[in-house]
C-alpha cells in the first residue's frame, strides 16, 4: 500500500525526471498483434531434419533461418536463390566456400559463427554412420568435408564437382542450429525446445497442443511483424472454420477442397491456394516380392498407365487448381528442363491397354494397392475411379485404404501410394528423378522398396548428378527420364495443392511450399 507521503515523493521524483529528460516525441507505435494459426496437425518435434513433415515445415522458417533461400518475393516461380545467413558462395572444383553474415544472433543470445554452420552440415549431425539426424544423409549426399576455415567462412567439399550445393543449402539442411546448445540438449531435447536465428523464438512446444513463438526482436533483419505466433492444433475442420469466422483464429490451414467455396463466402476472410512442390504418385512394385508379382511384367505396367484417363480425373476432382503431368519429371517448375510440347509415351488409350494386358499374360490376379487413408487430398477418390478404369481393361486392382503409413508400407503389396517433393534443388529435377529413384534413394533402399534401378539408369544418373555443364545436364536428364519411362515403375498423378484462409485485413504472401513465412516482406499486418 502506498502511503500519502511516499506517493508525494514518487510524484516529485517523477516530475523532476520528466523535466530533466529531453523532450523527444516518442513515435506512436501500434502494438503488434499476436497471431493464431489453427493447424490440423503438429509433428512430435521440430528439429530441422528429424522433425521434417508438412506440419512442421510451416513452423521451420519462423524459428530457423537458412543459409540460402528460394526467394519467392523476387521470383514467384521459385528459380531464384537469395542469400540469407550466407552472404556469398563460390566454387572451385570440388570445394564450395560459403561466407556468412556477421552479427547474427541465436535466440539464446549466442552469436552465429562458422563453427555453428560447420556443425549444422557436419558428418556428426547429418551424414555420418551414427548421425544425430540420419535422414540428413539424403540431403547432404556427396558431402565429404565441412570445415570452418575462418570466423565467418565455411568450406564444403563434395566427392564430385557439384553445382547444386547452394540449392541444397536452401533446403532443410540449410537451417542453422547452434552447436553448443544442440549438443547440450541432444537431438530429442533440441526438437522440443529448439533455438534458431529465425524471426520468432520458441516459447513452448507441445506437439499435442500448440507451438507458441514470440517475436525475436534481435532478428538480423529487424523485428518481425507479429508479437507472437501460435500454431494451435485444431484437428477438426469445423473448429478451424468456426474459429476463423469468429476472429478467434487469424489463419487456418488445410481446407477440404469441396469446402473452399464456403470459406470464400465468409466476409472478411481471404482464401489462398498454391500448388506446392510435391507430386502425388502411385508406385508399381517391380520386384519379385510378393513372389510371382505380375507387375514385374513391363507390358502390364504400361497397361496400367494407358487404361487411366488421369487428366479427366484430376480436372474432375480439382478443377483448375492443379494439373496432371502427362510426361513424368517434365514439371513446369524446372524452367529450362521443362518442355511444354513434350508428348507422353503412354497416353490414355483403353484399347491399347487391353491389348497390353493380353500380351502380358496377366491372368486377373488381384493386385493390392496400399493407400494411407485420407492423407492426400482427393487421393482416395481418385483411386476408386482408377480401380474402375483398370477393371474395364481387365486389370483387377484392390485399393486398400489403411490407417497409417506403418500399415501402408507393410508388405505384401503390388502398388503403393506416395508423394514426392520437387524443390530440393530449385530449378533442377535432381530430387524427384535421382534423389528418390537412385540406388540410395528411398524407393530403392527403404524396407518398402519397389524397384531396383537398372544399370542404364544408374550409369546415366551418376553422370547426370555430377554434370556441371547445363546443356550436358539437360541431355542426361532427358536420357535418365527416358530410361525411367521405359521401365515405368510408377505414375505421377498431380501436383499437390495447399490452401490456407486468413483474415483479409492481413496481407500475406503464400509460397508454393507447405511452409508459412511470417516475417517482414511476406506478412503485412
Amino acid at each position, binding site marked *: 500500500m502506498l502511503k500519502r507521503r511516499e506517493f508525494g515523493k514518487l510524484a516529485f521524483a517523477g516530475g523532476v525526471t520528466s523535466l530533466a529528460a529531453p523532450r523527444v516525441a516518442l513515435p506512436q507505435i501500434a502494438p503488434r498483434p499476436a497471431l493464431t494459426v489453427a493447424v490440423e496437425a503438429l509433428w512430435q518435434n521440430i528439429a530441422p531434419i528429424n522433425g521434417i513433415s508438412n506440419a512442421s515445415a510451416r513452423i521451420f522458417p519462423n524459428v530457423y533461418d537458412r543459409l540460402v533461400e528460394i526467394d519467392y518475393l523476387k521470383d514467384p516461380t521459385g528459380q531464384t536463390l537469395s542469400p540469407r545467413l550466407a552472404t556469398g558462395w563460390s566454387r572451385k572444383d570440388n570445394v564450395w566456400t560459403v561466407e556468412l553474415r556477421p552479427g547474427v544472433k541465436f535466440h539464446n543470445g549466442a552469436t552465429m559463427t562458422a563453427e555453428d554452420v560447420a556443425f549444422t552440415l557436419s558428418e556428426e549431425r547429418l551424414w555420418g554412420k551414427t548421425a544425430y539426424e540420419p535422414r540428413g544423409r539424403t540431403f547432404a549426399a556427396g558431402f565429404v568435408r565441412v570445415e570452418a576455415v575462418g570466423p565467418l567462412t565455411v568450406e564444403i567439399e563434395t566427392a564430385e564437382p557439384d553445382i547444386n550445393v547452394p540449392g541444397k543449402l536452401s533446403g532443410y539442411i540449410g537451417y542453422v542450429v547452434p552447436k553448443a546448445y544442440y549438443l547440450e540438449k541432444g537431438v530429442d*531435447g533440441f526438437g522440443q525446445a529448439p533455438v534458431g536465428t529465425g524471426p520468432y523464438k520458441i516459447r513452448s512446444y507441445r506437439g499435442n497442443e500448440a507451438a507458441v513463438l514470440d517475436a525475436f526482436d534481435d532478428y538480423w533483419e529487424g523485428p518481425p511483424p507479429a508479437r507472437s505466433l501460435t500454431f494451435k492444433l485444431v*484437428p*477438426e475442420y*469445423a473448429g478451424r472454420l*468456426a*474459429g476463423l469466422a469468429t476472429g478467434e483464429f487469424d489463419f487456418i490451414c488445410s481446407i477440404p477442397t469441396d469446402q473452399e467455396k464456403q470459406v470464400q463466402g465468409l466476409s472478411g476472410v481471404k482464401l489462398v491456394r498454391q500448388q506446392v512442390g510435391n507430386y502425388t504418385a502411385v508406385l508399381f512394385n517391380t520386384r519379385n516380392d510378393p513372389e510371382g508379382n505380375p507387375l514385374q511384367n513391363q507390358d502390364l505396367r504400361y497397361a496400367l498407365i494407358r487404361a487411366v484417363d488421369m487428366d479427366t480425373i484430376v480436372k474432375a476432382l480439382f478443377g483448375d487448381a492443379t494439373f496432371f503431368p502427362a510426361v513424368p519429371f517434365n514439371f513446369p517448375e524446372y524452367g529450362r528442363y521443362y518442355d511444354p510440347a513434350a508428348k507422353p509415351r503412354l497416353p490414355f488409350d483403353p484399347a491399347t491397354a487391353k491389348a497390353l494386358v493380353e500380351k502380358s499374360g496377366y491372368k486377373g490376379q488381384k493386385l493390392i494397392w496400399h493407400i494411407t487413408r485420407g492423407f492426400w487430398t482427393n487421393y482416395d477418390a481418385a483411386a476408386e475411379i482408377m480401380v474402375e478404369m483398370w477393371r474395364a481393361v481387365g486389370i483387377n486392382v484392390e485399393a486398400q485404404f489403411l490407417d497409417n503409413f*506403418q500399415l501402408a508400407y507393410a508388405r505384401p503389396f503390388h502398388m503403393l501410394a506416395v508423394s514426392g517433393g520437387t524443390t530440393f534443388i530449385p530449378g533442377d529435377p535432381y530430387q524427384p528423378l535421382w534423389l528418390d529413384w537412385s540406388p540410395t534413394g528411398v524407393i530403392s*533402399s527403404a524396407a518398402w522398396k519397389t524397384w531396383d534401378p537398372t544399370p542404364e539408369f544408374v550409369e546415366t544418373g551418376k553422370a547426370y548428378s555430377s554434370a556441371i555443364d547445363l546443356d550436358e545436364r539437360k541431355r542426361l536428364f532427358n536420357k535418365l527420364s527416358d530410361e525411367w519411362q521405359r521401365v515405368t515403375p510408377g505414375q505421377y498423378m498431380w501436383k499437390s495443392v495447399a490452401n490456407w484462409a486468413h483474415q483479409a485485413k492481413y496481407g500475406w504472401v503464400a509460397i508454393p511450399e507447405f511452409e508459412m513465412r511470417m516475417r517482414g516482406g511476406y506478412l503485412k499486418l
Partner: protein
Amino acid sequence: MRTRFWISRLLRTLVTICFVVTFTFVVLRTTGDPVVALLSPDALPSEIEQFRIQWKLDRPMIEQYISYGANLLTGDFGRSYQDGRPALQSILERLPNTLLLGGFSYLIAILIGIPSGIVAALNRGRLIDRAVMSLAVFGFAMPNFFLGILLILAFSFGLRMLPSAGMGTFSHLLMPSFTLGIYVAGTLARFTRSAMLEVLDKPYMKLARAKGAAPFRRVFVHALPNASIPIVTIVGLNLGSLVSGAVVVETVFGWPGIGRLLVTAVTARDLALVQGLVLVMSIFMIVSNLVVDLAYGILDPRIRSSR
C-alpha cells in the same frame, strides 16, 4: 469381515491391473512394429536397426516385459519414443485437463440427468415424461463427435458465442463438457426414472403419504435414497468412461487432455505412452468401481452387513 472384504477387493484390483499391463504390452507388440511407425517412411533398414537397439526393442519380449514391470513398480513408465520425455510426465501434464473436462461434464450430467429422471417418474405416462425420455434417448443415441460438430457450427460459427477449440477460459469448457456430459445425462435420466418408478409404489411411500409428508420430503427423503443403488451404479460406471470417453471429444474440440494424447500415441505406436495411458485409464475405471462398491455399503446397511 470388513478387513477380508478390503483385502479381497485390493487383490482383485491388483490382478486387474496386472492383466491390463500384460494385455496392453502384448497387444502393442504383436500388432505392428513401433519403429517403422516412428521413423520417417524413408528410413533405411540400418536406421531402423539403430533405433531398435537404442530403445532395447531388439531384446526378447519376455525380457522387455520383466524390465517394464520392474520399472513400473518404481514409478518409471518409460520414455516416449516421440519426444524422449518421461511418459508419466507427459500424462500428468495433461491429466488435470481431462479431469477438469470430465468433472465438469459429470456435474452437467448429474444436474440434468437425475432431476430429469425424477420429473419423468413423477409424471409417468404424461407428455412431460415422454418429452424427457425422448430427450434422454437423443442424449445417449447422438454420437458425440457429431453433436460436437453441430455445437461448433451453432454456437461458434453461427451465433459466435463460444470459442470453437482449445482451452483457456471457462467458455472453452462449455461445449466439450456438454457434448461429453449429455450422453451420461441421458443414461442417468432413464435409470433414475426406472429406479424411482420401482420405489414410488412401495408400501413405505404410501405410509409416508398417509402420514402427511410433503411431496418434496417424500421424493428426496423416502424415495430417492431407496432408488439410489442403480443410480449410483450407473454414476460409477460412467465416471470411468468420462475419462476414456474424452478421446473423441478432446479431438473434436482440440482439448489438450490425455484422450488426445492417446490418439497421437496410438497413431505413432509410442509404446511407453500408450501403455501408461491405458494403465491410468484402467486405474480410473477400477477406482470408480471401488467407490461404487463402497457407496453401496453406505447407502444400504443390508449390503454392508452381508459383507
